[in-house]
């Protein structure tokens, strides 16, 4: 298309001006007598209030996992005083919505409503938390639906690959699966859910975050009035994860697949580690953004993959580096070779100062972008609070990023990104890819779980 360009003088790329640093939001905080910790922030830009509640929810075994998933689907299907329709109708009339989610660490409820309706909004939440009824008919319907929904989820290659990877990393620990099993779901009863609710849907150790057009002191009072009578007992801690083992490359067979889902993963440092800021930047430079080495090589140079990426997840008792690259079946081995090369390069050679500065700016800048909405600020605060970190992170983390050196990045990359320390799972057509992949390492083949 050079033909369409008129000849002009070279233009200079404009410099980036400093961006004002906003004041840290003021967080009003109160821990109620029942153990519930409440955070409230005034953000008056729009007349809504964002709500996030996280409840520690560790439990072991497939039966617990299935009950927890079904509890999340049925929490809002009835209380002592309101049926499912009334709850939904009342929430909607407040301009409100609430949804639930559960994983191996916590049970979460999130949503928003018109800020003037904060008190009745909290009233619906409190009623559900204190007297969810799990009506047998509603539980039966949602159970059947959840069985079908998990079958659909387990047909997605990204889910199959993740389940195989987590199983590989965590064995029989609760972190080994995100999705419950059919048989366990089928056995979960409404009585099980009522017992689980009584045992675990508890304010002890729970954190409620409110952000929006609310006066923080009044919001704390409103929460205390609505939820002060919610009671429960302390949760059990999440058990330690098993020792990491790498082993051969696992190929999970998916006959006829037009792509291979390449996954590598291993332990990463936790958020409270002094190496955390350096790890954030190492992961970014490796595969955490479009300007990363992984994208430059595998997408923009080789054209092997649409969205190759590397990321770090933090759970309560583990942190995990994951590399995810989906490639056409016939380039599986060459793509895996490039992934191993880029990992090895990170682990053995210093990054360039320009790469480090770019990653630093990106990490700090996107933290600011992610907290620029009420919803984003609420989610960020809730997540930080769950990890025992306060709002000062928004100020201190960019400052910590600014002091990371290339040597710091090399040190953490050597321990986290080195390919010899990672487990490898490939989901793809084993008959087609096995021989070429075997040239890169020992193999074993597994059927999908």
């Amino acid at each position, binding site marked *: *298309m050079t033909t369409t*360009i008129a000849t*002009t003088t070279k*233009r200079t790329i*404009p*410099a*980036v*001006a400093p*961006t004002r640093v*906003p004041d840290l939001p003021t967080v009003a905080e109160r821990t109620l007598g029942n153990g519930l910790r409440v955070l409230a922030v005034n953000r008056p*830009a*729009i*007349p*809504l209030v964002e709500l996030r509640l996280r409840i520690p929810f560790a439990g072991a075994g*497939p039966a617990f996992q299935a009950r927890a998933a079904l509890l999340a689907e049925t929490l809002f299907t009835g209380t002592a005083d309101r049926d499912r329709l009334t709850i*939904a*109708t009342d*929430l*909607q009339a407040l*301009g409100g919505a609430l949804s639930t989610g559960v994983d191996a660490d916590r049970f979460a409820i999130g949503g*928003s409503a*018109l800020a003037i309706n904060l008190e009745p909004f909290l009233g619906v939440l409190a009623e559900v938390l204190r007297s969810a009824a799990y009506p047998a008919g509603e539980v039966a*319907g949602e159970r059947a*639906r959840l069985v*079908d*929904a998990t*079958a659909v989820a*387990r*047909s997605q290659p990204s889910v199959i690959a993740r389940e195989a990877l987590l*199983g*590989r990393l965590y064995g029989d620990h609760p972190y080994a699966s995100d999705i419950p*099993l059919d*048989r366990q779901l089928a056995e979960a009863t409404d009585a099980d859910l009522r017992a689980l609710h009584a045992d675990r849907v508890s304010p002890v150790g729970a954190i409620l975050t409110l952000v929006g057009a609310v006066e923080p002191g009044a919001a704390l009072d409103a929460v205390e009035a609505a939820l002060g009578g919610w009671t429960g007992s302390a949760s059990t801690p999440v058990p330690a994860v098993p020792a990491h*083992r790498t082993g051969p490359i696992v190929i999970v067979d998916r006959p006829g697949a*037009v*792509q291979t889902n390449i996954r590598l993963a291993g332990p990463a440092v936790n958020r409270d580690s002094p190496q955390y800021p350096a790890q954030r930047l190492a992961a970014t430079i490796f595969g955490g953004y*479009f*300007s990363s080495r992984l994208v*430059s090589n595998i997408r*923009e140079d080789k*054209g*092997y993959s*649409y*969205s190759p990426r590397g990321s770090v997840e933090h759970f309560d008792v583990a942190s995990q580096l994951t590399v995810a690259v989906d*490639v*056409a079946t016939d380039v599986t081995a060459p793509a895996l070779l490039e992934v191993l090369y880029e990992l090895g390069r990170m682990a053995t050679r210093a990054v360039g100062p320009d790469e480090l*500065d*770019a990653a630093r*700016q990106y990490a*700090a*800048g*996107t933290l*600011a*972008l992610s907290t*620029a909405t009420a*919803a984003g600020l609420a989610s960020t605060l809730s997540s930080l609070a769950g990890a025992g970190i306060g709002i000062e992170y928004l100020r201190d983390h960019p400052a910590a990023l600014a002091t990371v050196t290339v040597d710091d990045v090399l040190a953490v990359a050597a321990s986290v990104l080195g390919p010899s320390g990672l487990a490898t*799972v490939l989901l793809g057509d084993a008959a087609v890819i096995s021989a070429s992949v075997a040239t890169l390492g020992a193999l*074993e083949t597994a059927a*999908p*779980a």
Partner: protein
Amino acid sequence: MSLPAPSYPVERVTLANGLRVVLAPDRTSPVVAVAVHYDVGFRSEPEGRTGFAHLFEHLMFQGSENVGKAEHPKFVQAAGGTFNGSTHPDFTDYFELLPSGALELALFLEADRMRAPKITQENLNNQIAVVQEEIRVNVMNRPYGGFPWISLPPVAFDTFPNAHNGYGDFSELQAASLADAGSFFDDYYAPGNAVLAVVGDFDPAPALALVERHFGDVPARPVPARPSFAEPVPTTERRQTLVDALAPQPALAVGYRVPDPVADLTGYLPFVVLTDILTSGDASRLERRLVQKDRSVTDVGTYLGTFGDPFDQRDPLLFTIRAVHPTESPAEAILGAVDEELDRLATDGLADGELDRVQARLAAGLLREADDTLARASSVATHELQRGRPELINELPGLFGEVSADAVSAAAAALRSQGRSVLELLAGATSKSGGEEPKSGGEDQ
């Protein structure tokens, strides 16, 4: 009903080269969004070149006069920002969200590629491969891939612009040439065929000066006449079936035609409200009927437009119902129940309070979306591009508040009075789900 509405200031300027500029300052957070929307999408790509509008969007990231390959992402991200582009039936957008100090950088980058991208054969070949991987990930290698955004239009429409696959056929993508790219750019990427939205933390006067500095000398070029894509509303039902070899459960999509969202906004809004009446939350009509009472579907949703944004597509577009259902629950019974619920709305009207509560949540949803600077930029740009009314971002809650229960009933009746388009997806995969204990790891096999 009176609904809370935002009140973002909105200014409009048209540069001498025809570029329409919308400035919407808001100092809440030190964040700025820049979005450029070109008035061309995959409905305008030529026959024999399916997928070209989307491929061209990728090519716009491959460099321009003063920006090398891969430099656009690097400049934006090293300034602490994010970026992307997307291709829709009627427009293609390019956008950045950045700390406000990077505003001029984003304007420069967008202006440079509006003058002309610089594409080599090597980069074209590379991006054809990347797009093919995108299609493998999102369509070919997954169950329900492209269902129904790719597979329903050929049931509902007869003409190439409306019916063809916007992701494109692999053979046609591979045939794309540099000459195709040059003529597509010449035909559709004139400044007079685009809108620039600048939204967030800035002062309008200096921001407009920066816009003039960087975009003012982009040469004016002829603006293409916008074709009509109109097709008659079917009077009889159209129906097709496809087999999805990877899907464990069947699925169903039903498409209906709706009023022209640009020419008849008042007539169109009740259909937007109707989507929420039908499938927004546990109190909505189809959730109650299909999920809770009949238990005939696993999941059901309704939306307007190809990708679910009711305000970014011109006529003709579809009102779509999408459901995934167990094999033992036949499609005919689900369709019959949908008909009954639409008939009930059309004849009995809405229940007391039903419209008020749906409008309250709808207004809250609009406020929540507009709180996001990038979403706000996208909205004002499409409102300007398609309606010349970026102020709609502030006005829509009020307009939704004026929608009457009778109008929603009439919308339901209008769906019933036409020939709907039905696409049945048959499950080609037996459900192979977690009936077994989880594998504890590869070594145990």
